[in-house]
């Protein structure tokens, strides 16, 4: 038996198929993964993501500490509540985890993956030794992601007193309301909110969202939505064997002369000697499905591998992320069920705001 979120009974009552996810019993779907996917693209769905790890970084050195710990630079966060996506790297420049950091009124709040929780916390504590910071995990907060073109209006309907605060949020900003925090972030490629809510109020919030017409969605739909949106999944698309430069995350690395951060030297060396591989999007319009670990063949260049692949419910055919030789052009082949099939190489994302966006 795995860990259970406070919403576990609500999921079971809604007919969820429960699976293990990083040691947590989580809903895979509540009947049809594809219907849930389409609901998020067309109206609004909600995901229990309380398994995610929320960590507050506080103290006099919190800014200096995070500028050293993360490949992206928290000094980009000029306004309270603004959020930043970053990799947390080891000395070899490889990805320990990806995370979101929010600038709080005084300090910072970080949200990391659940499967990497222990490793991340150990690393954060170890790196904190020479800084005046406190690393405080917040297990008493649940997290519900409400996503889709109608998500924000339905959350306002469920929580009318918070309408003005929600309206004030810019994209990628989160603001507190007592113990609660409303964040205009997500993992689907749609507008929406991720709401941090005290555990003892999570069930009633979930029920209010249900009453406002928001449909429960499982981690299955979350995975196809994030894949269409071209968002990496830690442990599949990148891990400790690759750098952000090999993971379509170069935009999250802030190389400025005056800032040292863990992994910087290794990344500069890799840039100098040549980044050997890159993470690209693949599109296959014929029947069949691209899946993780299928071999990719790039004629004259070498081989690669699909890191995540699925049927795209929005597009009606299969898409994937794959790590391929850096010199790969606009097409390659995938080995699938003993056949070699030509596929198109594109730059992710595939879908944003319900529409195809790749070229």
């Amino acid at each position, binding site marked *: 038996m795995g860990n259970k979120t406070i919403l576990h009974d609500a999921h079971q009552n809604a007919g969820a198929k429960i699976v293990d996810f990083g040691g947590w019993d989580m809903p895979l779907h509540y009947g*049809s*993964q594809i219907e849930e996917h389409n609901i998020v693209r067309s109206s609004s769905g909600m995901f229990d993501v309380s398994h995610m790890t929320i960590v507050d970084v506080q103290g006099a050195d919190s800014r200096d500490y995070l500028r050293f710990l993360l490949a992206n630079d928290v000094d980009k966060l000029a306004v309270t509540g603004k959020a930043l996506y970053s990799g947390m790297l080891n000395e070899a420049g490889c990805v320990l985890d990806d995370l979101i950091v929010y600038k709080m009124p005084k300090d910072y709040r970080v949200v990391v993956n659940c499967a990497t929780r222990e490793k991340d916390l150990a690393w954060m504590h170890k790196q904190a030794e020479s800084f005046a910071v406190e690393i405080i995990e917040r297990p008493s907060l649940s997290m519900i992601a409400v996503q889709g073109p109608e998500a924000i209006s339905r959350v306002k309907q469920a929580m009318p007193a918070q309408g003005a605060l929600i309206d004030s949020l810019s994209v990628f900003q989160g603001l507190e309301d007592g113990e609660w925090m409303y964040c205009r972030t997500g993992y689907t490629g749609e507008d929406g909110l991720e709401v941090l809510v005290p555990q003892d109020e999570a069930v009633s919030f979930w029920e209010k969202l249900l009453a406002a017409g928001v449909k429960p969605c499982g981690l299955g739909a979350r995975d196809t939505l994030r894949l269409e949106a071209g968002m990496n999944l830690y442990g599949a698309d990148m891990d400790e064997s690759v750098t952000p430069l090999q993971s379509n995350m170069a935009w999250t690395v802030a190389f400025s002369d005056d800032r040292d951060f863990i992994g910087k030297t290794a990344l500069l060396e890799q840039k100098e000697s040549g980044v050997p591989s890159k993470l690209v999007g693949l599109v296959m319009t014929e029947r069949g499905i691209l*899946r993780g670990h299928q071999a990719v063949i790039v004629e004259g260049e070498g081989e690669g591998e699909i890191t995540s692949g699925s049927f795209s419910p929005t597009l009606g055919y299969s898409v994937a992320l794959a790590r391929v030789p850096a010199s790969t052009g606009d097409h390659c082949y995938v080995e699938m069920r003993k056949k070699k099939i030509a596929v198109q190489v594109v730059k992710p994302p595939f879908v944003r705001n319900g529409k195809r966006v790749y070229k």
Partner: protein
Amino acid sequence: MSNIPGELKYLSSHEWVRLESDGVTATIGITDHAQDLLGDVVFVELPELEAELAAGDEAGVVESVKAASDIFAPISGVVIAINEDLEESPEVVNSDPYDDGWFFKVKISDAEELNTLLDAEAYTEACAADDH
């Protein structure tokens, strides 16, 4: 608990067979338990019409959001019909696996083979063993 009709025969690989009233036609599909394991079905690859299948042959592929799974011919025979509706509406395999979600029909070449298949009780046991 999944639906396992008593009048059908089964393979432990989750195909079902229905002997039609003419005594020579068999209809084949995948079970409720199989569609539940697979999740949303998005493609079904069916055998060619008039293909001669031997029991145990690969007869097609069903692909869901989660996995691709081979379909095996439970009995020998010539393919006389395929369910073309599955091309447009593969989700019928999830919603109605034993009726509208059928895959193909064969003209049986050896009716004795039906006796080698699992009955509902034996298939139920096979599924229970799978779950552990």
